[in-house]
């Protein structure tokens, strides 16, 4: 199991270094290739006195695998609508919200090492310390992480950090956008991040090192519980946007750029 993860990890890293070259070269050719598109930076209209060009952030999305990505996207859509969501509805029906929040807190607390390690790797001393304090407080006073005492009573809020963000912090580019089966939007960089976090810092992967079935089951419970607490965000996006694939792609890239920045 470890070996497989290691191999896929190196494989992805080598793809990353390759794709980084592509994305560095991208700005020169992007205007003409369909794989890359840019948001207009200087949309200065003449019709209106107001000029909003100060506000047009340039967001670059490289999506050379779009046709495959779209297929996986529609596969994920089906899986979500017919499998994941119905199970999440079951969670909603059986477990009261307070219970699901506790489960959410528990998993979140369990993943503290991911946040501590990545905050530390980015030399964010205060964030790393906060996460350590949160881990200690919530594991003890919060009854094994079921209650977020650190946030409620000590006003120390969670700050999500992952290896994708760490790479981004050190200026590693996203690389191409990818859609991962079941997991959804990602990029090569963040995909590597997921693998590193999952193998090196996620306690669950140590607990169930040789029991892939159990590992998947635990992760599935976490994911289903998260979906059950969500306010139908995906359904809203699907309902409102002309092309949900593009909408999600851009949301993902923007969101990640935002979290890398702070």
């Amino acid at each position, binding site marked *: 199991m470890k070996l497989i993860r290691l191999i896929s990890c190196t494989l992805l890293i080598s793809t990353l270094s390759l794709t980084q070259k592509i994305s560095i070269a991208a700005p020169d050719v992007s205007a003409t290739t369909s794989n890359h598109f840019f948001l207009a930076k200087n949309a200065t*209209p003449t*019709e209106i006195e107001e000029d*909003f060009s100060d506000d047009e*952030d340039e967001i670059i999305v490289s999506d050379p695998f779009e046709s495959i990505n779209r297929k996986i996207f529609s596969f994920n859509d089906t899986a979500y609508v017919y499998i994941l969501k119905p199970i999440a509805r079951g969670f909603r029906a059986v477990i009261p919200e307070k219970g699901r929040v506790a489960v959410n807190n528990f998993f979140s607390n369990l993943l503290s090492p991911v946040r501590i390690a990545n905050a530390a790797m980015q030399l964010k001393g205060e964030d790393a310390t906060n996460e350590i304090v949160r881990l200690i407080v919530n594991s003890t006073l919060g009854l094994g992480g079921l209650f977020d005492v650190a946030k409620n009573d000590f006003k120390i809020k969670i700050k999500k950090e992952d290896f994708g963000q760490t790479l981004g912090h050190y200026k590693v580019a996203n690389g191409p956008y990818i859609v991962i089966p079941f997991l959804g939007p990602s990029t090569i960089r963040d995909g590597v991040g997921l693998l590193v976090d999952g193998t090196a810092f996620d306690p669950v992967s140590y607990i169930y090192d040789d029991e892939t079935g159990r590992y998947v089951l635990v992760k599935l419970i976490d994911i289903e519980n998260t979906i059950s607490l969500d306010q139908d965000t995906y359904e809203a996006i699907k309902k*409102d946007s002309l*092309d949900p694939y593009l909408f999600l792609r851009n949301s993902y890239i923007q969101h990640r750029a935002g979290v890398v920045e702070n």
Partner: protein
Amino acid sequence: MIVRNYIRSFVSIFILTLSLNSLADGASPTSQVKSTVNGILDVLSEKSLTTDARREKIHKLLNSRFYFRAMSQRTLARNWKKATTEQQKEFIGLFSDLLRNTYVGRIEAYTDQRIEYLREKIKNAKRSIVYTQIVTSSADIPITYKLAKKGNEWLIYDVIIEKVSLISNYRSSYASIIKREGMDHLLEKMKEKLKTADAS
């Protein structure tokens, strides 16, 4: 005694000028956002309203608070200039409807949650930002509003949910659609979307 009276009148004049000033300047960005969000929540909670009446009310409210023309312009970005005046006009109409649906839908989903108004930043005479967050049982969802001054009123021209700008999102997906299929096709698609949204 005389001194006290003097001070009192001075203070009241001071307060009066202050309030007059703020009247002239219009409401602060935060109060503008607050009244928008509260207004929508009020309309949504009025159970007696028919669907059409509710839509009409929200329509009116958002029209006076959202800077739809600027939003449309920023969404189309370079395609704005390429579009004919007719197309621009049609786009503003359709886009306003779509945006209203999206925004109200998101606010509606969090009706029962607490909304916190964190702080505001007035960048210059024409731009300001209001930071809010929706506090749910499992997470805090940051929602940031960008406002521009039009006349003496602050109008919302972008909503950023979880670091994702709605306008920027629309811009990139619409740009792809325009590039592939053209402006008229985009307008067609928007019309279709609105029709299915109305039906459901």
